[in-house]
């Protein structure tokens, strides 16, 4: 808790993302991007926390984010993702999708490419709510229920799935290189396979109870069938996409909408969630040592028997800790990461040992020593 750095930036932050670091180097991330919302003139900004060893800031505290450069953005920044080291993709409340390029030498930002009305209704704008990219492909989703595939450096759109959803699609993530997963406001997860030509999802999963809107989704970095979602009631659900159409485990996480859920990219026993109620939770699960996980109590007995069909070697690590149900209290630890309740925490990102989050209280919090 003592390692948290707060910086007040006079703009409400809607998204923060670390710049990618190459996996070969063991460097900690040093640059992150933020997008603002609800301003008359919104901005995207790049910040540096100077992790390169040399502390060349005299005035600021060590670890205090320093603004590198910023650029104005038309409309609220609803989602933001790094395409590669120099380029980010942003989606706007006007329905536009923009690629910005950061010029390292001159520390300036310029617009590299723009699709001004990617998402839209016939008579008004439709906000573009989510983006995911794996260079050079970019996939966006919006309130108009469309899924659009772009390619960086190509003018037009590659593919549009019109009317993919009759409600708003809130978030999208890659499941495999050709498959994506979307969540919508009637509580459904839909799998889309781009190899198929049809405009129908290949699979639909949903909760069996109330149709609570789902706001965020993230895939387990190593095991591609495990997906975590967060919804309007603050529940964290972990799904197994291969088996069944209902979530594997449901955990009460927050008292208000959950805006973002992220698995730690290199240490996936750790999960982070942030919410409208102003808290950021760090979930830590541990793969058990003594007791095989299929003998622990679980929600659904049929699930247990299925997971009992593990390979004869009884390899514990194949039975993922996240899928063992929520009754195993001893194996799931949750800690609050922010010192006190703030206004809504809209976004978080974690890489290595560094965590950054942005709030409606016009503050950015950086923690450089996350215990993972």
């Amino acid at each position, binding site marked *: 808790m003592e390692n948290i750095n707060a910086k007040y930036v006079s703009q409400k932050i809607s998204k923060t993302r670390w710049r990618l670091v190459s996996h070969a180097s063991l460097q900690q991330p040093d640059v992150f991007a933020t997008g603002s919302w609800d301003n008359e003139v919104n901005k995207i900004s790049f910040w540096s926390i100077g992790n390169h060893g040399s502390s060349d800031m005299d005035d600021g505290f060590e670890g205090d984010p320093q603004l590198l450069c910023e650029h104005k953005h038309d409309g609220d920044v609803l989602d933001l993702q790094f395409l590669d080291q120099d380029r980010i993709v942003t989606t706007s409340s006007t329905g536009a999708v923009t690629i910005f390029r950061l010029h390292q030498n001159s520390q300036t930002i310029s617009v590299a490419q723009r699709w001004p009305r990617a998402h839209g209704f*016939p008579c008004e704008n439709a906000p573009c709510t989510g983006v995911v990219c794996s260079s050079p492909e970019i996939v966006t989703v919006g309130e108009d229920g469309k899924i659009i595939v772009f390619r960086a450096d190509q003018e037009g759109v590659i593919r549009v799935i019109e009317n993919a959803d009759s*409600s708003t699609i809130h978030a999208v993530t890659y499941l495999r290189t050709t498959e994506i997963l979307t969540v919508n406001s009637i509580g459904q997860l839909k799998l889309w396979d781009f190899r198929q030509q049809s405009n129908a999802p290949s699979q639909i999963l949903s909760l069996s109870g109330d149709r609570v809107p789902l706001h965020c989704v993230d895939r387990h970095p190593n095991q591609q069938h495990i997906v975590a979602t967060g919804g309007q009631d603050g529940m964290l659900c972990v799904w197994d996409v291969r088996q069944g159409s209902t979530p594997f485990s449901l955990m009460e996480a927050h008292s208000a909408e959950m805006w973002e859920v992220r698995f730690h990219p290199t240490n996936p026993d750790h999960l982070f969630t942030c919410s409208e109620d102003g808290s950021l939770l760090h979930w830590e699960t541990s793969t058990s040592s003594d007791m095989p996980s299929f003998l622990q109590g679980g929600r659904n007995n049929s699930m247990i028997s299925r997971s009992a069909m593990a390979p004869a070697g009884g390899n514990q690590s194949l039975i993922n800790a996240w899928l063992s149900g929520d009754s195993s209290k001893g194996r799931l630890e949750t800690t609050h990461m922010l010192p006190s309740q703030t206004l809504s925490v809209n976004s978080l990102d974690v890489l290595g040992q560094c965590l950054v989050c942005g709030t409606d209280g016009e503050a950015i919090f950086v923690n450089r020593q996350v215990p993972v």
Partner: protein
Amino acid sequence: MEELQQVAASVLVLQVSILLAIELIWNLCEVLFIDAAPAGSLLLHLLDWVRLHKADVDEKAREVLQSESPAEHRDYWDVVVSYVLQGRLEEARQMLVKQAALQPAARSMYKLIDTLLSRMPFYNPGGNQTLTEFDVKWRHWHDEVNRCLQDNSFASNRHLEIICKILAGDEDTLLEHKELLSTWYHFLVTRLLFSHPTVKPTELHYYAQSCLTMFLDSRSVPEPLDNILLAAFEFDIHQVIKDCSIALNNWWFVAHLTDLLDHCKLLQSHNLHFGSNLREFLLLEYASGLFTHHSLWQLAVDYFDHCPEFGHVYLELQIERVPLDTERKALKVLRICDQRQMSEQVRSICKIMAMRALRNNRLGSALSWSIRAKDAAFATLISERFLQDYCTRGTFSDLDLIDNLGPAMLLSDRLTFLGKYREFHKLYGEKRFGEAAKLLLSLMTAKIAPRSFWMTLLTDALPLLEQKEVIFSADQTHELMFCLEELTSCLNASALGSPKTSQDEDIELTKVELLRLSLARNLAMAIIKEGTVEA
């Protein structure tokens, strides 16, 4: 471009000056109203207040000390006099030592002034000395200073004579140094320091008024800031608040100051005509202003929460007027309403969002908004849309929504019907005719289906009736016939009223005849089947 920069710079300079003025007023209110210092320590607090808000003395001093020969710097004597005017006698003595080193001949004079400066008594609030004792001591010292002046001890050195006159509290000398004092309240505090250090809070305003008059030339008019400070010295809190409200262009400072004073129980709560007290009134004004800001509206909610009488009402009125461009913003507004049990506002905001979704043909979004608001009427509207689409196109749109309604189906009757009707189609598609038939019948007999849709349902029953195998039992067929009779009698009654084209009437009649025929045949086969004894 340069002009723009200049304009921007001047705006910033103006804002900085406003901020400094606000800080000045705030600190003075702290000293006078909240700390409420008694005589003796009052002056010490005021001295701190003046020192805090006059930073240029230190800058000048630094400049002088960093020069090669400080004692010969042209600002040297200004610095020394400024120190004395602010009551920083230790620092003045240290500066004078430098000058004394340069003029060994006048050593005795410098020694004398040093003694005077070191012996000035300052009141110690935590000590054992009472105010009267301090007063006596101070008078002794003051007499000594006067004696030095009358003896002309400093006649040869103009500067030292000035310092001595200041120590004696000579007003004319103080007024000669207007540029060093720069403000009338500095003049006031200095004057009090060297002539009435035991000033009581109640006497303050006499001195304040006279100092203001003396300091300003006959031509210049007191500024709003001066009036505010004067009102503070008079301990007239309400006047301070009133003047600040007039002078400043928004409620930020006044609202917070009043709130602070209210918490210290310094404001008598007289009810204003509109029922709330002054603090609440100002907070409401400030928060209402915040609500019009494009992003600070979220903070205004907290302010309204702290206004016990009218806060809730104001919030209810204001929260509906926040412009909702994106769903995310609408969700945040709704969360605020949910947390305060403002269900009316939840319903109206959801209705706005649902209507917008409906207009853009996003039926799933519209349904999710009406579920959030538990709005049965709107859910009925959406189902009607679906059913209309089906009647015109023959197929359902947005199957992913209807197939996965779940418990939301129970929100409205029409929605339940929609769900069940879709189920009927699915059963028919899977060739589970028996169950499909039962479902169809229950839809009509349980009165879930709207009357207008019965014709379509009966027409859907036709293929089931025409199957080789008997699906509807005799009882079920009787019920179907009953429904048909009910429907035709209704239609006849309404046909008398509304004009229909002959073509429509023909179609209707043909349909009814076909149905009657099929039902009769089915009844016959059913009776036979049920009457047959299984061999």
